[in-house]
């Protein structure tokens, strides 16, 4: 049985396209990445899977059950972290999390304390007094606390400081070992590469490719900036370099190919400085999708 299976799932808002012809198959226990620029339709798909949006056409199953018919049962096994966490302002985190637990028939609140101490969240503060990052922490705890079989996380790391991000990724790895399926949506490529087994790339509401992370890494593009001691007269570029541009002694370009080739080539040059950067998602999309 697949954790998530969609067939030609479409969502239109009136005339406007949300997502179109989404066909996905996600195995149980898999960490599945979902990457795309802002506004590509990531949240639309997630919200449709959760039953917040009613699909226009196509079908979707979660753990073998039809989302539009058995949403109530399916959601028992789902932990959801929205990209923007909005809770009842008048409640404290503790009240909110206890309220959440009771929907799942959980009346033992010890797990709330345990997770709150891991994430260093003050449970007594009112939601309205929490910063964006703390609200996010409350959201993360809320998505984990009822031990769901499927975690759906929409831009989970935004607002978390690097230390908390590390704690968060450790917890996700624990969850993975427990057998939890994780659907991880992000616009940050490196996050997805570090965590996920496979990833779908979405753009303009359509899935452009579903790839293994390894093959995505092979396609890995680097943004390179080199500063020369003096401008070489006849520079022979190695294969895979594109969009090169000179600014005085500084050369910038994009490189696609095996890293060893690039380093070999660079070692033959008389360089003062070299910067290798990860490109933004935009330029990867321009190149591949």
């Amino acid at each position, binding site marked *: 049985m697949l954790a998530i299976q969609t067939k030609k799932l479409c969502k239109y808002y009136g005339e406007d396209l949300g997502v179109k012809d989404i066909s996905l198959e996600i195995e149980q226990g898999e960490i599945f990445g979902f990457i795309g620029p802002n506004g590509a339709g990531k949240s639309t798909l997630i*919200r449709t899977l*959760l039953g917040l949006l009613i699909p226009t056409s196509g079908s979707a199953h979660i753990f073998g059950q039809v989302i539009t018919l058995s949403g109530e049962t399916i959601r028992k096994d789902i932990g959801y972290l929205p990209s923007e966490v909005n809770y*009842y302002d*008048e409640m404290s985190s503790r009240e909110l999390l206890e309220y959440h637990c009771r*929907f799942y028939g959980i009346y033992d609140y010890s797990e709330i304390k345990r997770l709150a101490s891991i994430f260093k969240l003050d449970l007594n503060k009112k939601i309205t007094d929490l910063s964006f990052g703390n609200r996010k922490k409350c959201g993360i705890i809320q998505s984990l606390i009822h031990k769901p079989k499927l975690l759906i996380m929409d831009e989970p790391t935004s607002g978390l400081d690097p230390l908390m991000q590390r704690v968060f990724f450790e917890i996700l790895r624990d969850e993975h070992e427990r057998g939890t399926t994780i659907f991880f949506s992000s616009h940050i490529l490196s996050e997805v590469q570090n965590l996920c087994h496979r990833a779908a790339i979405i753009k303009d509401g359509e899935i452009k490719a579903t790839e293994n992370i390894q093959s995505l890494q092979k396609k890995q593009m680097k943004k390179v900036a080199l500063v020369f001691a003096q401008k070489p007269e006849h520079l022979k570029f190695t294969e895979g370099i594109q969009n090169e541009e000179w600014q005085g002694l500084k050369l910038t370009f994009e490189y696609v190919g095996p890293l060893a080739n690039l380093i070999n080539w660079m070692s033959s040059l008389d360089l003062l400085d070299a910067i290798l950067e990860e490109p933004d998602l935009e330029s990867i999309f321009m190149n591949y999708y």
Partner: protein
Amino acid sequence: MNRNLFSKEFKRNKKTLIIWSFIVIILTVLVLSIFPYMKDMGDDMAVMMSKLPEGMTKSMGINMDTFNTILGMYNTYYGVYIIVLLSIYASTTGATILSKEEKEKTAEFLLTKPLSRKNIFNTKLLVLFTLSVSAFLLQTLTAVIFVFVFGGEEVQWSVFTTMHTHGLMLILFFTCLGLFLSMVLKSKMNFMGMTVGLVFGSYFLNAIAKTSDTISWIGYFSPFHYLDFSVSDPSYSLNFASVVVILFICILLLVTSYKMYAKKDISA
């Protein structure tokens, strides 16, 4: 029905229930406890009333006898202020009970819980009726006690029952109308102004209609025309047909609201 949702939702609305109930109870106590003084002045009042323009007294449902009986006196407040206030409370609560979750973006939290939309709708509906009927009952109870204390033995309790049954029907109607409007209109708007306008509007429509026969037809558009408070009319009695029709309209509004809610896209 989900108990967790019910108790949270009831707690959340308790404060407004207390405030609104308090206001109508104060009005009730006030008007009923001054009745003994008004009764002594009854004849003088009647003279004063006769000097008012006929259209005005008609539209307010006042005549010579109004201030001679406790129910006549009570009705100048009940049919005018108390029911209008309770209807505003009921329709505003109806309009916000579901839309508030969307306006404050908490719908995403609630609707991703293991609850069906049907269950959420029914639970919220139960909270809604608990609130509006509670406000009604608290006021009615106060009125019963004070009418009993100050009214003596000549109180026509059948008239009192008719008044309050008509009142309850109006409250139920505006409760359902509020809920229905929140489904039809954008959930992020502010409903308070609109519901005040609707309740007052339909009240005045009926009041204006009563001033003159030539425009009496506009009263047909107001629920206050069908569920009236003309207690000084000797034939005043429960308008059974209106009650049935209003209840039918209520069910229609609720079913339509549910159908819309079940298919609604919850925006981010």
